[in-house]
């Protein structure tokens, strides 16, 4: 096995909904080097349903409004 040369990774949160009238759910996270990788990894890792919509958002870009505990 040899060098893979991975770049630094960040966490991306993955959101999806199964049907258009269902709420968007947080379904997990992926570690990725860029948004394009995050898109691929989320699509392949979280394929337990045939989603109607799926999104990734860089965790660092999500603004924390309330945090308890």
């Amino acid at each position: 096995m040899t060098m893979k040369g991975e770049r630094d990774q960040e966490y991306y949160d993955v959101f999806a909904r199964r049907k258009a009238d269902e709420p968007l759910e947080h379904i997990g996270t992926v570690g990725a080097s860029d948004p394009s990788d995050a898109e691929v990894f989320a699509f392949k890792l979280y394929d337990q349903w045939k989603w109607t919509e799926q999104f990734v958002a860089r965790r660092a870009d999500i603004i924390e409004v309330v945090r308890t505990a």
Partner: protein
Amino acid sequence: MSASESNLDRVVPEDWSVTDDDEALAALVNLIVVLADNKFFLGRRISEWLPGGPSLESAVALAAIAQEELGHARALYPLLEEMPLVDTPGPLQRGAERERKYCLDCLAEPWEWWAEVVAALILVDPALTILFRALEDARYDDLRQRAARVPSEERFHRKYAEGRVRDLARTDQGRETLQRRIDGMLPEVLMWFGPSGEPGVAALKAQGLINSDNDEMRAAFQTDVFPMLEENGLRVEVGELPWKRWNNLQRKVE
């Protein structure tokens, strides 16, 4: 595609309405087995690297890609049984079912380096997709329908491949390692589209079974892939292609 298997015996021609041109039929058989075998061995070679994936996410994505490549092969092999010919090549399940393989030489043996995986993902897989796209108007319904699903699945293969190219190309050492693998694979991949004016492809095009000729497919591949490689500091200079070593039937460099 090669028409050099035209000595195969025709059977039940009355059940076959796709083409009555012997040269086109032989080229069609060759086209299907070449696409299927290359998909099979691409999936097989990728699968051998699953334990070596760089991260959980990358390994899972790579496993899905391998599974889809093998799925594309499995979708094509049954078409060979529809051909009105005897002795068409049989399907591969483990890879050793028949002596003659119709895959690129760069897929024939396990890869020793991760850079070979990446080079194949960014060269071989897009080359196959170019050919699948050339079948989207084919008069042969079963082939057109099977070919149609491939490019949409390949969208994520391509994004994955580009990410791995960026991984390697970010350092001088990684970029040079990848460059060597690209230099090794690229001539054969370019030749895989066949020499200019190849009679088998001309027959397929005349019969409405493919929508591009050899040079058009090769040019489409270069337009599709070369800019991305160059953006990452990789060279795509191609000298004279070694056509004397080209095996037209198995579509590989010997």
